[in-house]
């Protein structure tokens, strides 16, 4: 027999609830979902498990939107100094600035220090939920290592090219067809880099939007 929690209608309800609850502080969201899940389990013992029973049960619960709306405190939490959102905004900014610094090569050491500060800040960020934090780690915090790898790849090609340059005494090894990969590697790295950069912009915007209006809004979005 199917338990209540396994019923597609219930699964659908819980998925919608989780999505809506993502707007709440993490602990609160988790507790709310657990409470509603327990409600379903209890209803199974007290009521029936037929399709009609489940529909009545869901009807009585109210929409996930109304449940989450009830969880939002009467006066929305407007942290006076908006200290916490500022931390999230700062983290995103540090990680991206670090990446740009590393890409300049000359300022790379400063970039790595900025990156480390950004990582510490990221650990301290509390307003994002688990999924959002994971995105920040995978897409934003990875920026500096990815930039270093890209530089290494380009550097290696440049080095191979240079080894061909001197007085041409070893012309045989300098045959462009012999050093096969070099020609397209920088292009590939460049294209991948642009793709990764675009992904970062998208994720950064989304993460900043998630912590509200306080984060430094992406330039161009609110200019007018």
């Amino acid at each position, binding site marked *: 027999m199917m338990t209540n929690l396994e019923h597609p209608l219930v699964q659908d309800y819980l998925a919608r609830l989780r999505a809506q609850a993502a707007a709440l502080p993490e602990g*609160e969201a988790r*507790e*709310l979902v657990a*409470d*509603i899940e*327990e*409600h379903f*389990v*209890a*209803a*199974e*013992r*007290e009521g029936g498990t037929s399709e009609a029973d489940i529909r009545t049960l869901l009807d*009585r*619960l*109210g*929409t*996930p939107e*109304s*449940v*989450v*709306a*009830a*969880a939002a*405190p*009467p006066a929305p939490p407007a942290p006076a100094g908006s200290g916490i959102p500022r931390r999230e905004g700062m983290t995103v900014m540090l990680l991206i600035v670090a990446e740009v610094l590393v890409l300049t090569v000359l300022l790379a050491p400063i970039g790595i220090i900025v990156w480390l500060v950004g990582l510490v800040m990221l650990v301290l960020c509390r307003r994002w939920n688990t999924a959002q934090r994971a995105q920040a780690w995978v897409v934003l915090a990875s920026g500096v290592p990815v930039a270093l790898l890209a530089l290494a790849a380009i550097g290696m090609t440049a080095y191979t090219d240079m080894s061909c340059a001197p007085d041409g005494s070893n012309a045989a090894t300098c045959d462009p067809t012999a050093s096969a990969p070099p020609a397209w590697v920088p292009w590939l790295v460049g294209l991948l880099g642009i793709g990764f950069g675009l992904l970062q912009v998208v994720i950064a915007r989304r993460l900043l939007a998630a912590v509200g209006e306080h984060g430094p809004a992406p330039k161009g979005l609110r200019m007018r």
Partner: protein
Amino acid sequence: MAAEGEGKALTQLRRGALEHCVLALLDDGERYGYDLVGELSEAGLVAGEGTVYPLLSRLRKDALVTTTWRESESGPPRRYYSLTPAGRQALGDFRGAWGEFKSAVDRLLDGKARS
């Protein structure tokens, strides 16, 4: 002290009659969350049963109620809610304020009906 409590309860009255109804339901002893929610719903006090859970969680955070997990004969452990001393105090304050509020509104309504 009591007057101050009643004044405070009166402010709460306007936005929070429901949370005091929850406290009142717990006055006779601890209750299983699911039963509590069902009773509020049957009394016609809530639009959606789901909206009671955030309220319960808020009451717990404000230390007006406390929860205990108890094993049940069938199925997973159940969460029971009961009043804390602060919750009992809040309920008492509300009872006093509610009486006054109700008669004030009644007087006004009756007066309007007669004129």
